């Protein structure tokens, strides 16, 4: 992950020492969100790190792909960590947590089953916040060139001369 690999100066031990676990998914520190295995970490500047962690979980719950690591979702929502967007996002995530609390959970991130989180998202899916996050993910997630191979998609082929000699008609199972 382009921006965050550089932050791997943080060792797993440092991370864990400086942070609290948020749900089972993320490690949240004073100004960063990281994978529990420290495979990646993201510094936050405008958003509270726990807000970013919740936003990443929300992104996965909207477009869940079990073969995509969290870092792709983190990249997809990283753009909200700017002063212009932070107010709306903090409010949106606060609303999400309030909805979770209304159903007896501590907060959104602590809900164990995707089904229960999705129930909460269904309740807010017509909101501007949800639609902004969902709409942004369509390009933010699926237009990351790094995720294309994980779906088998090969992207451009012009530089390789197209598929005329590289399997445009190589289907064998018909």
């Amino acid at each position, binding site marked *: 992950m382009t921006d965050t690999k550089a932050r791997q100066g943080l060792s797993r031990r440092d991370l864990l020492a400086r942070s609290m676990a948020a749900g089972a998914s993320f490690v949240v520190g004073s100004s960063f969100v990281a994978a529990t295995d420290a495979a990646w970490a993201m510094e936050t500047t405008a958003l509270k790190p726990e807000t970013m962690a919740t936003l990443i979980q929300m992104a996965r719950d*909207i*477009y*869940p*792909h079990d*073969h995509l690591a969290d870092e792709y979702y983190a990249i997809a929502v990283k753009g909200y960590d700017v002063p212009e967007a932070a107010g709306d996002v903090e409010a949106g995530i606060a609303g999400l947590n309030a909805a979770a609390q209304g159903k007896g959970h501590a907060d959104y991130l602590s809900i164990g089953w995707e089904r229960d989180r*999705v129930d909460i998202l269904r309740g807010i*899916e017509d909101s501007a916040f949800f639609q902004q996050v*969902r709409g942004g993910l*369509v*390009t933010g*997630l*699926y*237009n990351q060139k790094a*995720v*294309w191979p994980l*779906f*088998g*998609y*090969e*992207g*451009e*082929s*012009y530089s390789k*001369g*197209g*598929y*005329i000699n*590289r*399997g*445009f*008609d*190589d*289907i064998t*199972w*018909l």
Partner: protein
Amino acid sequence: MAAPFDLSDDSVIVVIGTGAGGGVLSNELAQRGVSVVALEAGGRYLPEDYVNDEWESFGQLAWLDPRTTSGDWRVARDFSGLPAWIVKAVGGTTTHWAGASLRFQDHEWKAATNYGPVQGANLLDWPIDGAEMAPWYDKAEKKLGVTRTNDMPGLPGCNNYKVFEAGAKKLGYTEVHTGRMAINAQEYDGRMACQQTGFCFQGCKWGAKWSAAYTDIPRGEATGNLEVREKAHVARILHDDSGTVTGVEYFDADGNLQMQKARAVCVAGNSFESPRLLLNSASAMFPDGLANSSGQVGRNYMRHMTGSVYGVFDQPVKMWRGTTMAGIIQDEARHDPSRGFVGGYELETLALGLPFMAAFLDPGGWGREFTTALDAYENMAGMWIVGEDMPQETNRVTLNHEVKDQYGLPVANVHFDDHPNDIAMRNHAYTQGAAIYDAMGATRTLPTPPYPSTHNLGTNRMSENPRDGVVNKWGRTHDIPNLFVSDGSQFTTGAAENPTLTIVALAIRQADHIAGELSRGNL
């Protein structure tokens, strides 16, 4: 290259737009020795400029000036500011088109006669027919190098086509092949053969697909009779006290308002911009807009009955490899009311890359129903449905005075409601498309809603009687003898076929008419 014409040169023909209609017309006039100034709102992009990346290319080529939408079509909800996926560039949407080049069927020229009355539909016979158009189709097919015409071979079938063909044959369809395509299966007219690269929609980097951008436009310019002004956005068509058109006002590349005089003006800005321009040209003499005594300017907007079906299989297809529109089933294109609708439809393979599949598979959709489909992207095959939709007077382009473009001009509002015939035809096509993939063992099929429209037709329709439409059989407006319409907006009805070949054939024919009228002193 063409010597530039003076703004005050009132001997030139001004052509507005340089796509399948305007680009071809400009060249055909130039070849006949007629002086032409073509005004193109977009910039010039050639194969070396095209980008094989869906969103980046969209940003480069698509018409993104503001438009608004209304009506019950899903595009108005999911893509409210983007009713169409068309191109703003020299060559227009011939940069983006897939290349399918089909002639109308004879009965489609006379839809009112052959279909009979259809409630709510404003069907009308074209004032021309298949026999009249045959020689012009011949010329168009030669210009475009259409496969399976003039002894040209067809393209080879890619993986997506092979699934489609095998399923079609299991269902008993017989008119199944790799299409009549303006994509070279072998070198033709100085352009190389298709390399099965995909990204036909993003501009063909090999030039194997015909586009006016690198054929008709430079050839017209080479005659010295054609000047193409890029980034020239026409604001208004001007006329004198006798109601004769005298020129156009346009914003040049620097945003300055210019006035080009003209002997005649040909409007070819597509079915949104052409009526918008006629309406925005309203004057004291023509308060309802130019050429609008019938009240039909902007009405009868058609976009083809479309939709897609994707099939998911338990093994890879890799549909993105090769020609985007790689084959066709024509068995359902006939008019056969026993199916529960008039007119017919074509099934044509289509592939989208992962980014556009995510955007268009089920706009607004989310959750596992959506993502498990994308998880199977590599194992997907896809087809597009294109059928005749019903012209309706209330489906129309109007001016939205509440929303202005970057030049302060009211934008086009595009209103569209599906006709019950459109819905019945789409449902039939969804069933047949799914059956094709089910026959090949699909584990899941996805009836996908229409994309923003690329086939935009009918808003300045052609009619025998001036009361019924905007232009006559030559595309010449009924009201103003030196004002022409030269794009798909002149379509009386839409037929089932992809429209480009017919737009090109009409443009060649119109060039012949205009040149003849000039030499006869009638223009």
